């Protein structure tokens, strides 16, 4: 497993797409969490983000702000990264090359999961870092006090962000193995993340009780609930306290386990064509 992890790490680090995705995640996070709200705050213009007050952009809210994008748009980044990591082997036809080089399918799969776990953690840490810099800049500019979250709160926030990101990465791994490619898994994954979830939450749930009830068991609303419990603001897409933080964490862990187990079984049993 460790040799596979080492090999996967090289591939992950050297793949230009990895850095592009990280850059996109950083830009999205900074723009929609700090830059746009701060611009709206400065000129007092209307719009979706205008109700954000200055204190929502200060270092004290770092945890909630840093993980607020993960239930939807930053989750999509995690999903794409996972599909590239696993589905790329199908697209390039490299499964046969790496499997005939010696390692077992299980070792390769565990190596990929480990590197995805590490990459997701790095992504979350980067989100916290750029959030810290952005919020500190705003605080200094507005002559506000620099009150940071406690180390414990930071640790919980990083863990929660990693869990949410990994659920979407696991979803991407499952889609990549199931559909044996890159394009269709990314397409279907984004349709679920960006369209179906929103339609269920905004259109179906308010008018159908069973859909509202079903929301409590779906990964997106649970991710949104966990982020909300840690301070993410409700005006961010996908954020909402549908269930409590404990239930959300358990549900998300269940999804993560289910996704990677199912993908592992499929990968182990199917022919490499």
């Amino acid at each position, binding site marked *: 497993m460790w040799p596979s992890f080492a*090999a996967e790490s090289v591939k992950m680090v*050297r*793949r*230009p797409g990895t850095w592009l995705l990280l850059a996109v995640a950083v830009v999205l996070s900074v723009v929609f969490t700090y830059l746009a709200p701060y611009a709206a705050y400065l000129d007092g213009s209307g719009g979706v983000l205008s109700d954000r007050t200055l204190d929502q952009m200060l270092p004290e809210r770092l945890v909630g702000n840093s993980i607020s994008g993960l239930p939807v748009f930053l989750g999509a980044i995690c999903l794409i990264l996972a599909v590239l990591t696993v589905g790329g082997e199908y697209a390039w036809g490299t499964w*046969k090359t790496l499997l005939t080089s*010696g390692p077992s399918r299980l070792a390769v799969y565990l190596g990929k999961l480990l590197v995805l776990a590490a990459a997701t953690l790095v992504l979350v840490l980067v989100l916290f870092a750029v959030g810290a810099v952005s919020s500190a800049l705003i605080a200094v500019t507005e002559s506000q006090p620099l009150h940071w979250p406690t180390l414990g709160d930071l640790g919980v926030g990083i863990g929660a962000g990693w869990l949410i990101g990994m659920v979407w990465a696991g979803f991407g791994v499952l889609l990549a193995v199931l559909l044996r490619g890159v394009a269709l898994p990314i397409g279907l994954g984004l349709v679920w993340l960006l369209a179906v979830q929103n339609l269920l939450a905004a259109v179906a749930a308010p008018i159908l009780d069973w859909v509202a009830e079903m929301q409590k068991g779906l990964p997106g609303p649970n991710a949104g609930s966990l982020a909300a419990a840690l301070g993410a603001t409700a005006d961010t897409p996908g954020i909402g306290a549908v269930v409590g933080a404990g239930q959300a964490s358990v549900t998300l862990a269940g999804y993560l386990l289910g996704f990677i187990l199912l993908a592992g079984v499929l990968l182990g049993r199917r022919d490499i064509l």
Partner: protein
Amino acid sequence: MAARARRGIVRGMTEHPSSPAGGPGAGQPHPVEARGLTKRYGRLTAVDALDLTVRSGEVYGFLGPNGAGKTSTLRMLLGLVRPTAGTVRLFGRPPSAPGQLARVGALIEGPTFYPYLSGRENLRVLARYAGNPPGRIRTVLEMVGLADRAGDRYVGYSLGMKQRLGVAAALLKDPRLLILDEPTNGLDPAGMVDMRALIRRLAAGGCTVLLSSHLLGEVQQICDRVGVISGGRLVAESGVAELRGATGLRIVADPLAAAAERSRALLGPERVREVDGGLDLAVEPDRAAWLNAELVGAGVAVRELRPLERDLEQVFFELTEAGMTHVA
């Protein structure tokens, strides 16, 4: 055996039993041993009860037309595809056994690598997967003649360079068994000669090679034994020379008319045919010395006397088109 008898396979003296006995690998299991290997995709039977034995140290040619089941067989040998029925053993153990592919190198159905990495980086990644020392990377790059371009990105490689990298990857583990699917595909003539020489060198060094190729001349040049697959079944397996078979003698003599007259008298007119300034004689090749003495005794100057052999290409088409089965 019952299945073989139904298919009319004839086994001759060159066939070794699957039990470890005789030959250079006495007491050791064969590098490749497949029994009753079958693969079905829905209603399509890609490989049908195939028996295959590759002996230690030999270069075994695996021939067959497109869609005959060659690649499916090779994939099953390497554990990439699960057989519907039958067994595969590499050095006596299934390919899925832990560490079993540690000394098996393979290039299956063309090289595939990561386009954003250089040739050297691709090998480095594979070496990490396999836990091989990185020091061998330079060695294998030099072996395949790619050391000068190893720093270039794979995406910019020509087909021949990709092929060389694929062979380099297969050699990375210093393999005891090398499974190569069309290794000279895309190489220029000089590259093909180099590759064949490399394969012979590896075999001389004790590496067993299972070579799948469409190039019958190539197989004829470098393989010790050949298996021909058609319709998912092994229709022939034998030494190259035996498969081509000596079917008679070719004589070039002066005067030709006198040689023809004497040959007809000795062999019967139906066994002598004038062809291209010579004679084709339907006679066992081991009677060449006797025939030569008779002709010389009759005052005929024999300028050329050699066995008539079929070209492997001719044998291949006969076997795959007629669907006949011959395991010598």
